[in-house]
Each structure stands twice: as structure tokens, then as C-alpha cells.
């Protein structure tokens, strides 16, 4: 990968295999290869979009970066510190700088806590503020995300989905992190509310020079928000490039098929499109195909694709592809 000075996060050959136990003595009989060797950089101040279909390992990648799961192998460098080797307490300290916004605004807020307690909790847990200062900071944070500071005494159920997601954003911002992982932050929201939340995320990014890893399956929204985009399939990154390179000139057959499958809200544009319809379903990550993960559904797969795993290589400046047949 390029030696860019302003690399904030560097992930190299990260693997997360979840063991499967069976039988009376709970012997390990296999593993779910959720993330199977992914490498990428996130540069300071950018938004890296991470897209893929359900079960491709994109959320697991996000969680493993934050060490919410202990990775099976690989390294994660944040500002030069290898997070994998950190002790619990040291990692807790690092988490001040890296926060997460979750997909489901209904499940990710404790229903028994008031909004003030939810947003203020990170401040007291990390001993950043106490007493009255917490209240002031909470009021400021709520204002920042477009909520009335007077709502601090209310409970999550009194808010709509979009408002709850704003609460989640306020909580993530409480410790003034530099890096936020947005794990499908808008996919549970209605269309007219999605734009509100995305605009908010972009405003905050500009205001605080935040770096985002934006995980989503909505390729249209990822095109809007990202500077660079990585496409995952079955635990592996298939293609990574600048946004325009990826959307205008996708090189990997999976990216091509994925982009052509996205419906376009314009009947005229839809008529003239070339569509690649993939056959079949995504194989099980318990027993992924040999060689290239995508070969079982790939329209151009060759013999070599079954024999060896394609290297993730830079075919054009900044444009990485894992495919034997792309030159």
C-alpha cells in the first residue's frame, strides 16, 4: 500500500474467524471465515466507504478494527500504534479517539437511560468531565446534532428513528474522537430521513476534521459520501479505488455486477443500462470456494481462478483489484 504520511488507520492482512463448536465436549469443527485477510489504509479526514452484500464481513471488519472482537490474525495500526498488541486498559484509552455509530437506532440505545445519560456516559466513564460540566457538554452535543438540548431528560422511545440516530451520533462525538466507524448508520431509516442524517455526518466531518469508515450496502449513498471505496465479498476486499475510478470504471467483475444491479430512480436511465445478473447465491463463509472467492458466480471465471487466490494488487495508481483476469 502507498506510504502516505497522513494515514490514520492501517489495516494489514486482518483475519477474523469465528470458531464453530459441536458435540458434548464442544470440539471445534470449523470456522466462519468472516474476514479473511483484508488490508487497507484510511487517510486522515477522508471517508472510506466499505460496501458489500450481507454476510460479506464488512461489519465484522469494523468491529475487529475497534478490537470488539479479538482478531485471529493481522494488524491494525492507528496513528502508528498496533491495536492488536494493546492490553485491555490501553485499548480502552485508545477508544476515546475511535468511536462507532451503529446500524439499528432502536437496539443501540439503552431504553432505561435518558438521552442525557446516554450521551454523557462516555464522558463519565472516561473521567473527562463530571457533574455539571457533563450536563453542559451534553446540551452542547445535542445542539450539535440538531436536537433540542431540553430533550436530555427524555427516553429513547420518545424519539423517531432519525432522531435516535442523531443521539447515537452525539454519543459517538462526546469524547471528541478523530475516527468514527459508521456501521450502516442509515439503512434502518426512511428515505427522506436518510438524507438528513448523511448531511449531518458530512457537516460534522467538516467541522471537526473527522475521518470516517462508512460501512454500507447502499452503493448510491456510498458514492455520495465517500472519497475512496472498498468492495468486499465473502470476507475479502475485491476492489479498492478512488470513488470516481470505482464507479466509472469498475475493474473487478463482482464490482461490475454489483453496480449494474443497483436500481436507478429514473426510468429513462434504466432502459439503456447493461445489466449483469449474477447467478446463484453467496457461498457459505464456513467453507469458502478455493482460489478466488467469487469464482463460483463469476461470469468470466477461468481455471486459474480455482487454483490460486488472486493477489490484491495495484493495477493503476491507487486502484487495487483482486482478480487474476484484470490486467
Amino acid at each position, binding site marked *: 500500500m502507498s506510504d502516505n504520511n497522513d494515514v490514520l488507520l492501517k489495516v494489514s492482512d486482518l483475519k477474523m474467524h469465528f470458531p464453530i463448536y459441536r458435540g458434548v465436549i464442544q470440539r471445534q469443527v470449523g470456522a466462519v471465515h468472516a474476514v479473511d485477510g483484508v488490508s487497507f489504509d484510511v487517510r486522515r479526514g477522508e471517508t472510506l466507504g466499505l460496501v458489500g*452484500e*450481507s454476510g460479506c464481513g464488512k461489519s465484522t471488519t469494523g468491529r475487529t478494527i475497534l478490537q470488539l472482537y479479538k482478531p485471529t490474525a493481522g494488524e491494525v495500526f492507528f496513528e502508528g500504534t498496533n491495536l492488536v498488541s494493546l492490553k485491555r486498559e490501553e485499548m480502552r484509552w485508545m477508544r476515546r479517539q475511535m468511536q462507532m455509530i451503529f446500524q439499528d437506532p432502536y437496539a443501540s440505545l439503552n431504553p432505561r437511560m435518558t438521552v442525557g445519560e446516554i450521551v454523557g456516559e462516555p464522558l463519565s466513564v472516561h473521567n473527562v468531565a463530571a457533574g455539571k460540566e457533563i450536563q453542559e457538554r451534553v446540551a452542547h452535543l445535542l445542539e450539535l446534532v440538531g436536537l433540542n438540548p431540553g430533550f436530555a431528560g427524555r427516553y429513547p422511545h420518545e424519539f*423517531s428513528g*432519525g*432522531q435516535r440516530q442523531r443521539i447515537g451520533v452525539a454519543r459517538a462525538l462526546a469524547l471528541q474522537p478523530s475516527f468514527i466507524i459508521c456501521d450502516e448508520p442509515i439503512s434502518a431509516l*426512511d*428515505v*427522506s*430521513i*436518510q*438524507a*438528513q442524517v*448523511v*448531511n449531518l455526518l*458530512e457537516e460534522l466531518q467538516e467541522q471537526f476534521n473527522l475521518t470516517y469508515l462508512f460501512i454500507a*450496502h447502499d*452503493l*448510491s*449513498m456510498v*458514492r*455520495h459520501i465517500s472519497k475512496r471505496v472498498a468492495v468486499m465479498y465473502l470476507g475479502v476486499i475485491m476492489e479498492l479505488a478512488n470513488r*470516481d475510478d470505482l*464507479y466509472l470504471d469498475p475493474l473487478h467483475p463482482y464490482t461490475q*455486477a*454489483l*453496480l*449494474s*444491479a*443497483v*436500481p*436507478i*430512480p*429514473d*426510468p*429513462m*436511465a*434504466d432502459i439503456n443500462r447493461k*445489466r449483469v*445478473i*449474477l447467478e446463484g*447465491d*453467496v457461498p457459505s463463509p464456513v467453507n469458502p470456494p478455493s482460489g478466488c472467492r467469487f469464482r463460483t458466480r463469476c461470469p468470466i471465471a477461468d481455471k486459474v481462478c480455482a487454483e490460486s487466490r488472486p493477489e490484491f494488487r495495484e493495477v493503476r495508481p491507487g486502484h487495487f483489484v483482486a482478480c487474476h483476469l484484470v490486467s
Partner: protein
Amino acid sequence: MPDLLLDIKGLETQFKTPEGIVHAVNGVSFGLKEGETLGVVGESGCGKSVTMLSVLGLVASPPGKVAAGEALFLGEDLLKMPAEKLRHVRGAQIAMIFQDPMTSLNPVLTIGRQLEEPLMLHIGMTKNQARDRAAELLGMVGIPNAKERLNDYPHQYSGGMRQRVMIAMALSCSPQVLIADEPTTALDVTIQAQITDLVKRLRNELGMAIVWITHDLGVVAGLAQRVLVMYGGCVIEEASVTELFASPTHPYTIGLINSLPRVDRNAHSRLYSIEGQPPVLYQKPHSCPFAPRCKWAMERCWKENPTLDPVADEHRVACWVDTKTGRPR
């Protein structure tokens, strides 16, 4: 209008909840012509699913109640039909597929058994005839080794395959109308593309009319011929699909289309967004349900719920404002 298969007039549906009566559907009227595909678009809670469930008599009562209106199917009112007769229309003449293919199949019966049931019930096939036809249907929706896979249970099928089974089941009695309630929402885009392609192919082969309920304007653009846009339990715009996307006229439709980023082009620096939230209707709307979020709203919008009036050929809009000029219509 001639040759209407379905003719819905002034439909109103309410639900009793502890917080009060929710007016989910408020005077919805539309027609469905033979062989056409009608898209029904709207966000959660706008009443799009409840409208179609009401038509089929599938709203649980209590707490739900179809309070007013008619739903004519080939001239007969489905809302007044005796339960036994309605059961025969449902499934045989009007079939429905649901959003979640995981929960709409019975997990303890084989796929074959579930496919055979409507065939024996509605068409009066024998067990053996039904078995053969079931295999044929599975093959038609693109499931390989159809004959062997009849003996599988739903959990042995993937999400996309289960939705194919639902479609096979819905089409098994050659219905004239297929109502699809967000059938691809739970699926990944590549699988969604497979399913919409399948539906297009079957539509051309079998010629049934389709009502496709969705929140995804992209899916509607590629599939429907005519579109209803719903908001707050009312139809707020109705047009052909090309007309709707070329000249959306209701402020909500305009906002919705503009707020979507597109995969085929770079968006503007900021997404257009509709501020505020959709309403919860504890009262029957006496003003325009969209007025609180509308930047065009005038005095009249707060006093009277607009009627659905034509603005062009086959294009109707419920709005007091002419959004092209900003003046009263």
C-alpha cells in the same frame, strides 16, 4: 374507465391503539387495469401496505377496521364479500407475496407441501397432479433440481430462493392480480436484481396485473408503468412512471426524488433533504398531511386536505400549490 380489474374507492382503515385511533388509510382511490404494473411508493407508516391488506380483508380486526370505502374486483365489492367466497378470490384470483420470505413460509412443512396446498384447494387438483405442477412451478421461478428440492424445508433455501418459492406459490393458480408487498426489501441488490428480472419475465409470459408496494423509487422506475405516491394515508400523486420521474409535481415527490443519491452520477455537495418527520395520524387529516414539512405551504394547506386533481393527462396531484410557479393552483 373501462376494463378495471380492481377499482378502489374512498378506502379508510383505522387501528385502535392504547394511544388512540390511528387513521392509517384516509380515502384512498385507485384503479388497476388488466395486465398493468402499478407501483405504490411511500415511506414506512404511509399506509401503502395497509391499503392492500384492507382490500384483501387481511387487516386483523380488532384492532383494525376498514371504516369506509369499496374495493371492487371485477365489479364485486371485496369488502362486503362473505368470508368463504373471499377465501376463494384470495389466492386463486388475487395473490399476494410479502416482504419477509423467512417468516411467510411455514418452517415445519416441506416446500412441496406448501406449494401443493393452494393447487388442491383452489383448482381441485389431485395430490399427484399438484406434485407435478409444483415441480413445474419451482422450475419456472428458476430453482434447479426442482423435483428433488420439493422435499426440502424452508430453512434449506436461501433468502432469494425463498422469495422465488413465494412467487411460485402466488402464481400457482394463475391469478389475474399479484400484490407484492416489498418483496425485495429484505434481499441483497444482486438477488433483488434476480427477483425483479424474474417478475418481469413472468409478467410477460403470464400477463397478470401487478401491484408492487415499495419504498424504493429505483425499483419502481425499472418495473412499474404507473405509480401512486402515498403520504399520511393518502395518495398524493399518481402518474405514469415516465411522467412521475420527468416532472414530479407534489412537493413530497419532488423532495423524495431529489434526496436520492444516484449510483450512476455524482451527487451535489449536499443532499436535498426534507426536514421533519412523517406524521402519526391520531386524527383524520383536515389539513394537508405534508404541510408541516412543506416549504410551499400556504394558508389553505393548513385548513383543507387537498383533493387528488388532474394536472395533466393521467397525472393527478393532491396539492393546493402549483409547485412550478409557487402560486395557488
